[in-house]
């Protein structure tokens, strides 16, 4: 093999592969350092959301809701103030996750919705307090299904409605769920 062939065909290939290998290791190393911090941040963020939807709550115990359809996670407030349940339904751009705080009788005391996948300014209205407050104080799922959707943002607001009604429908079985 002549030197020219090497420089022309082999060297570019070898150099690029070497660079890619080195940076892969570098990135893998950084990721191994930052991934736990990111996970911890997310956990704190989730805890904060839970405390926000259930006034007066401090710490939570996770419940095993894998057998219940239409509910993602459920937490019982350790001192017995109530429950915080999340459910995700398909909106317009992705999954809209609603987090609902319920007292022991299954009444909605607080609600928040993650609408980051929805269109800004249109679908995101479904995550605003002005819309979510329609669901406050509701107890049964049928009443939640009567709440109007937002015109222009039907997909996003329907996802919120589906989430809330599914949580209310399953409240009794969530209450009976064992600890995780």
């Amino acid at each position: 093999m002549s030197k020219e062939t090497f420089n022309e065909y082999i060297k570019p290939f070898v150099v690029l592969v070497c660079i890619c290998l080195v940076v892969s290791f570098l990135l893998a190393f950084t990721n191994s350092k930052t991934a736990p911090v990111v996970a911890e941040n997310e956990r704190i963020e989730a805890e904060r959301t839970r405390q926000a939807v259930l006034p007066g709550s401090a710490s939570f115990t996770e419940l095993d809701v894998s057998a219940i359809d239409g509910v993602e996670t459920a937490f019982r407030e350790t001192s017995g103030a109530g429950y915080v349940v999340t459910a995700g339904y398909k909106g317009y751009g992705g999954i809209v996750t609603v987090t609902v705080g319920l007292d022991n009788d299954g009444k909605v005391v607080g609600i928040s919705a993650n609408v980051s996948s929805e269109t800004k300014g249109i679908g995101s209205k479904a995550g605003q307090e002005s819309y979510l407050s329609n669901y406050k104080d509701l107890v049964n799922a049928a009443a939640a299904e009567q709440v109007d959707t937002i015109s222009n943002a039907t997909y996003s607001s329907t996802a919120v409605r589906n989430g809330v009604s599914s949580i209310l429908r399953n409240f009794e079985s969530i209450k009976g769920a064992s600890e995780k």
Partner: protein
Amino acid sequence: MKDKMKILLNGMFKENPVLILALGCCSVLAVSVSVSGGFGMGVALTFVLVCSNVVISLLRNIIPSKVRIPCYIVVIATFVTLVEMLMEAYLKSLYDSLGVFLSLIVVNCIVLGRAEMFASKHGVVDSFFDGLGMGIGYTMVIVGMSVIRELFGSGTLLGYRIIPEGYQLGILTQAPGGFFLFGCAIAILVAAMAKKGKKFEPKMGCDGNCAACHSACEDRKEAEAK
């Protein structure tokens, strides 16, 4: 030291990447609605620019010219991903406010343009100062624009309310206001330089603006070698 200072100032004024070379305008227009976001973006870009310039300058004799663009992109993407990971872990609020524009530094013309135009032809120290100067030049523009846009558009500065509610120029926070301000900024800098008699004379056909240049860089390299 004097020539290093010259390289540094070159990026800040004479060849300001945003206002003179008109590179990286997309992120400037999009992120300059809040001062904290603009500053964060400027620092992130400066970091990527300095690191990629240094590494590319170190590797400039190893990288074969046939695969230089993929090599540059890999190096740049690495630093962007590093910044992204670190920011997500330690500066979550800034990470959220920059959104997709942080990842888009990979394809920011300034970074690739400086790699191709400067770092691949100059030594490590010079490339470091070029990256720093260009980064500071970018940060100055984005912070300057975001101060005006946030103050008069939203009535706040770094989140603190300065102008009472109801007296804002809402258009400044939107795209047309950004373009308008961008045009004014270019005009002011060019006018100031013309007054000082420092007219910007492009040295090459494309004057480093790889986005607007369609000529093959191979030819230019050969011409320079002669």
